[in-house]
């Protein structure tokens, strides 16, 4: 075949590498059993409005025990109206993110009560400045697509802790935000903040920029707070993320497949609540289950079995045609050591291979309780590796190589080849944090461990990137909403923002 004829040939399609742990038959069996449990045992829903919706839909509701017996036909009807793809928009409303298919978006693990101070190496309670730095840093990291209300500022009173983190996030970052309520009454002001950014409730529903996490309580229980969040978000046109979280052998069956059955049952109930509240409202099939440690009574997020449960339910979520989410790319280590990198790396790669749409985790240590800015910077690089992996091996040109070898001599220089210059940045990543120096260069640079390199990089990023501040008049409005809500809760003063 001549070169000219080869050129006319179509390029070979790139395979998107994929991880699937369950056979179709296994998936269907898990779903069947979930339906059977929802019908027979029923599920507790501690929310009057939801129970009313269930009653109206013809379900058997025991008002005394708040238990609803869900019929498969209703759940299937609700699944049919739930969108399989959700569009999320950044603060400007210009950048669109697809949450669905095999698209992957990482966001920092959320709602940490502690921060690992990158200057002292000690865990402590975060304050306003930490939350601002965290949001600003997230804004700078290319592989972290969404921001999250990932730190709970300890210098504001508890009643406004949930709304306060969203307020700061909206001021200091353009990225869409993964968030959630701590109190039923918080949804309204949080929604108002988002609507103020968009210019009204309708505009917000048309271009949502936030996801609201709602966690059922295993086994088979939706609390009043989380159920109300589902209903409120659905009516505001904002996507809810269902965070079912069985602990194997403690709050769900010890077997992975047994935990999957319960996970699916809890999430299907969530989908149904959302669709009954508003037909067609966006909802994400997510979770934060864990392989319970039978020795220590802890919920390790970095366990391989935890990740297997994640990949398993995500595959089921895809089968049900829903967008998916998981808590992965995080670690239970207390500091940025080898374990932190190992667990985060494995999680990010497996999550990406499983095609999970929203992966919450980067920056997180210590069982989802401690955020580390250094880790966030390191994890950004890990997420970059995961993205590179799933982009696959592409046939960049036709022919692949033969023409480049025409006139080959032992003196041929690959480095100076135009072909090299054309492709090297597309084909390969060049990390900033990972150590690729020679031994001598590493010594000359002070034998810095990765956490130190990351810490220095944080300072550099924050220095060289001015804050992505929101427009002044919108900011004034956001402050007005927050202040009014704080006042209504008896809080007169708030910390000053940098």
């Amino acid at each position, binding site marked *: 075949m001549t070169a000219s004829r080869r050129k006319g040939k179509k390029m070979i399609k790139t395979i998107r590498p994929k991880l699937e742990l369950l056979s179709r038959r296994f998936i269907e069996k898990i779903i069947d059993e979930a339906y059977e449990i929802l019908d027979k045992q029923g599920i507790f829903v501690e929310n009057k409005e939801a129970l009313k919706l269930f009653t109206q839909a013809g379900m058997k509701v025991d008002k005394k025990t708040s238990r609803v017996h869900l019929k498969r036909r209703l759940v299937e009807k609700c699944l049919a109206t739930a969108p399989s793809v959700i569009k999320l928009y950044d603060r400007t409303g210009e950048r669109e993110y697809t949450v669905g298919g095999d698209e992957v978006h990482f966001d920092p693990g959320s709602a940490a*009560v502690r921060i690992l101070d990158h200057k002292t190496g000690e865990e402590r309670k975060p304050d306003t400045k930490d939350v601002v730095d965290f949001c600003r840093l997230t804004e700078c990291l290319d592989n972290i697509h969404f921001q999250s209300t990932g730190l709970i500022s300890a210098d504001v009173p*508890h009643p406004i802790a949930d709304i306060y983190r969203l307020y700061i996030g909206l001021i200091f970052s353009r990225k869409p935000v993964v968030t959630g309520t701590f109190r039923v009454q918080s949804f309204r002001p949080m929604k108002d903040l988002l609507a103020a950014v968009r210019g009204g409730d309708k505009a917000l529903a048309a271009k949502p920029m936030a996801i609201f996490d709602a966690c059922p*309580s295993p086994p088979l229980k939706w609390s009043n707070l989380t159920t109300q969040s589902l209903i409120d978000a659905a009516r505001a046109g904002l996507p809810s993320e269902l965070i079912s979280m069985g602990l194997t052998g*403690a709050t769900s069956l010890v077997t992975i497949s047994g935990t999957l059955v319960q996970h699916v049952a809890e999430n299907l109930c969530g989908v149904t609540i959302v669709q009954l509240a508003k037909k067609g409202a966006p909802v994400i099939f997510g979770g934060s289950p864990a392989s319970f440690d039978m*020795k220590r*009574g802890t919920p390790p997020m970095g366990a391989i079995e935890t990740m297997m449960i994640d990949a398993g339910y995500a595959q089921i979520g895809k089968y049900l045609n829903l967008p998916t989410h998981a808590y992965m790319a995080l670690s239970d280590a207390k500091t940025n050591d080898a374990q932190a990198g190992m667990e985060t790396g494995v999680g990010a790669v497996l999550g990406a291979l499983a095609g999970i749409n929203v992966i919450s985790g980067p920056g997180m240590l210590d*069982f989802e*309780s401690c955020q580390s800015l250094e880790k966030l910077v390191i994890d950004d690089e890990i997420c970059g590796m995961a993205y590179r992996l799933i982009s696959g091996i592409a046939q960049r040109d036709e022919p692949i190589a033969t023409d480049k070898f025409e006139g080959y001599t032992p003196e041929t220089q690959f480095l100076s080849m135009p072909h090299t210059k054309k492709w090297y940045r597309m084909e390969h990543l060049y990390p900033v944090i990972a150590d690729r120096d020679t031994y001598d260069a590493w010594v000359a640079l002070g034998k810095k461990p990765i956490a130190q390199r990351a810490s220095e990089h944080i300072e550099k990023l924050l220095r060289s990137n001015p804050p992505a501040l929101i427009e002044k008049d919108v900011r004034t409005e956001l402050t007005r909403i927050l202040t009014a809500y704080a006042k209504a809760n008896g809080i007169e003063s708030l910390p000053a923002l940098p």
Partner: protein
Amino acid sequence: MKKEELYAKMATAIIEGRKSEAEDLAREAIKAKLDLTEVIEKGYVPGIQKVGELWEKGDYFLPELITGGECMKAAMAVLQPELDKAKIKTKSKGKVVIGTVEGDIHDIGKNLVSSMLSANGFDVVDLGADVKLEKFIEKAEETKADFICLSALLTTTMLGQKKAIELLKQKNLYGKYKVLVGGAPANQKWSDEIGADGYAENAMLAVKLAARLKGA
């Protein structure tokens, strides 16, 4: 069966987590009109102690530990009516009012501690989960408790532990009860900060902590 042989069987039933056997042996002891205080002290207690030891050594994990506790409770439930009838007071290591604080419905950790305390000779009043803070104090007053144990899993609800102590202060009852806190977000620092009497990392350590504070 000889007394000693029966005691050994009781211990083994607890250690190996065989509930119905632990109950049957208790019935056998009642039938044989044995001294029930001795039955508990020489039969069942060594069993649960061994379970604790095996757990600390790392041989037993939580399922074995909690099963041991459940077996102990089951055996005691069989013996209790007889003890009551004979007006025998078992030596309690202390009275505990325990629960998960309001707004929090997580109870695994609390159940573990409750079960271990009760299996190790404490008199436990378990109020369950999502318990109003006033209720802890009311119950402690009513039962003349030694301890109030407050569990919380959520970072948001752990504030209830602090509020409960404030409430005790308001009612001038602070210091009357030993207040112990536990749960995933709690730690010794938190316990010190809010003025609690102690924190334990796990259920077995909670038993030891309570025993130490009671001087038992």
